[in-house]
């Protein structure tokens, strides 16, 4: 399987400024979306995206095709950085967990009045980390099941189980928006 980023990486490794800009344009939105959805904090997501690129610049000159795709490698780095931050958050709030916001519709307000995106975001943040990661990788990042399972270090069957449980939890949390 050829890596669609290979040619660009070679040029980045040679110090081509145009290739640097092209790689940033191609990958930054994906990495920021990944980190944003894993962390639900735009500022932290930006930090993760920047740190991921710092590592990418170091890796680019010595990148060799044949192993994992560069995009998959980037996801692995970004996910590790996200998990570092999630772990730090848990250490801070262990003794004082924040109250869970009520995601259900208020009786005096219609669904139209709600920001649906915020509802989805809140529901996603309440998922266990591994279920959220599976949905972010497969639904939002559009990775294949094999890539996502490989990144998460689980079998495809385990990935499907995480996806199924996560989506069922989301359906329950968004029951007023999603029929069934």
């Amino acid at each position, binding site marked *: 399987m050829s890596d669609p980023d290979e040619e660009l990486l070679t040029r980045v490794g040679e110090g081509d400024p145009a290739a640097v800009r092209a790689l940033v344009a191609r990958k930054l939105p994906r990495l920021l979306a990944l980190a*944003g*959805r894993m962390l639900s904090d735009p500022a932290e997501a930006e930090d993760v*995206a920047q740190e991921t690129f710092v590592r990418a610049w170091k890796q680019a000159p010595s990148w060799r095709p044949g192993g994992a795709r560069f995009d998959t490698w980037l996801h692995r780095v970004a996910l590790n950085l996200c998990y570092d931050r999630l772990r730090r958050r848990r250490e801070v709030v262990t003794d004082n967990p924040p109250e869970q916001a009520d995601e259900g519709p208020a009786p005096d307000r219609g669904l139209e009045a709600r920001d649906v*995106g915020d509802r989805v975001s809140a529901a996603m943040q309440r998922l266990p980390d591994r279920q959220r990661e599976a949905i972010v990788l497969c*639904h939002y990042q559009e990775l294949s099941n094999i890539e996502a399972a490989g990144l998460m270090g689980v079998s495809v069957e385990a990935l*499907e189980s995480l996806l199924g449980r996560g989506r069922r939890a989301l359906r329950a949390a968004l029951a007023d928006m999603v029929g069934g």
Partner: protein
Amino acid sequence: MTHERFEILAQAYGGDIARWPTAERDAATLLMAAEPEFARIVLSDAGELDAALDLWAPVAVSPALRDAVAASAPTPRRRWSLNAWFMRAGVGAGLAAACAAGLVVGVMLSDAPQAPTMDDTVSAAISNYDDLSGLVTLEGA
């Protein structure tokens, strides 16, 4: 493909079979053709959740972030040809030698006795002449 497997895949990957595992799409397509009503209900159900998930917009990339990330890339490496390297090395060595030579000459000149100039010689002659004039005057007195 069984009904159960079709439902598991829809629950995991959503209502668009284009996003299902490649190896299972053909079998899913056959089931859709054989039992369209069953497939429609299952896919529609999963598709509603997909649509809701898609309303969560990603964090937008700001120009400041884009510029900062691009600026964090290493600066371009200079590619010097061998000839250019030797030329630059030669010029550099020449300049260094010239500087060193200038320094040595400068130090030597500052330590060496000052050679008499033309003005100094004339002054000395005048001075001697004055002295001689004095002697003549004394002898004549």
